[in-house]
């Protein structure tokens, strides 16, 4: 395990932790952007350049901006008086800790049989493009349809309704 991996892992996990624990919602959005950037760097570390740059473009470029816009539109940056955690926070923490315990136990138990290829895969964008328009052309078309439907749906859902008193 290289030092770079541990630094990136610490960056990602700390970003995620900050995103779910900070009081100010705008700070949470910034922290989750740090976590997304750490994940993109982890993908690059895993020799998945295309996925890493797609992560940067989609998550840091689009999703983080969407979250910031939603926060500003809903005045969500104000800290509620009753605290930032819901009434059932203890149950939620217990479930999350249990899930982590089970997943960690499974990973550690199976670490002897996990595959360990030392040769780094060399995948070019040319190969990815050929795969997308060859073997994966049906999923690609379905994703295109889904994105169009989601775009129209998001606009319709968030659109100002007619006749609503404002």
């Amino acid at each position: 395990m290289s030092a770079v991996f541990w630094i990136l892992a610490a960056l990602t996990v700390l970003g995620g932790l900050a995103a779910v624990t900070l009081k100010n919602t705008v700070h949470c959005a910034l922290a989750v952007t740090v976590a997304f950037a750490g994940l993109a760097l982890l993908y690059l570390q895993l020799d998945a350049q295309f996925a890493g740059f797609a992560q940067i473009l989609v998550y840091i470029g689009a999703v983080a901006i969407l979250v910031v816009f939603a926060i500003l539109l809903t005045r969500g940056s104000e800290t509620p008086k009753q605290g930032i955690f819901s009434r059932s926070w203890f149950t939620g923490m217990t479930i999350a800790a249990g899930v982590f315990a089970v997943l960690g136990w499974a990973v550690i138990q199976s670490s002897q049989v996990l595959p360990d290829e030392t040769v780094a895969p060399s995948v070019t964008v040319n190969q990815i493009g050929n795969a997308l328009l060859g073997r994966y052309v049906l999923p690609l078309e379905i994703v295109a349809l889904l994105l169009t439907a989601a775009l129209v749906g998001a606009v319709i859902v968030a659109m100002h309704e007619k006749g609503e008193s404002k």
Partner: protein
Amino acid sequence: MTPLGGYLLVAALLFAIGLAGALTRRNAILVLIGIELMLNAANLNLIAFWRYSPHPELLTGMMFAVFSIAVAAAEAAVGLGLVISIYRHTRTTDLDEMNRMKG
């Protein structure tokens, strides 16, 4: 520990953090952020397994992750649109106060 085990542990930790955020926060936008973190943890698993698999040239894991990123983007757009729409009706994003199904 093998490198793959390290990546899987990081992904498990990130998934648990996202789940804790989705289950404990009051603000609906932060619940969505928690769900995004969980999706990202799954993507990290897919790409780590792709990298250390015996046949990475088949691109299966990476394609799955790329499609997952696209679906997550669509989910984020619709989810945040719903939050804004609910906020317009109820003037709150507090999930503890969203306890009725009447519009």
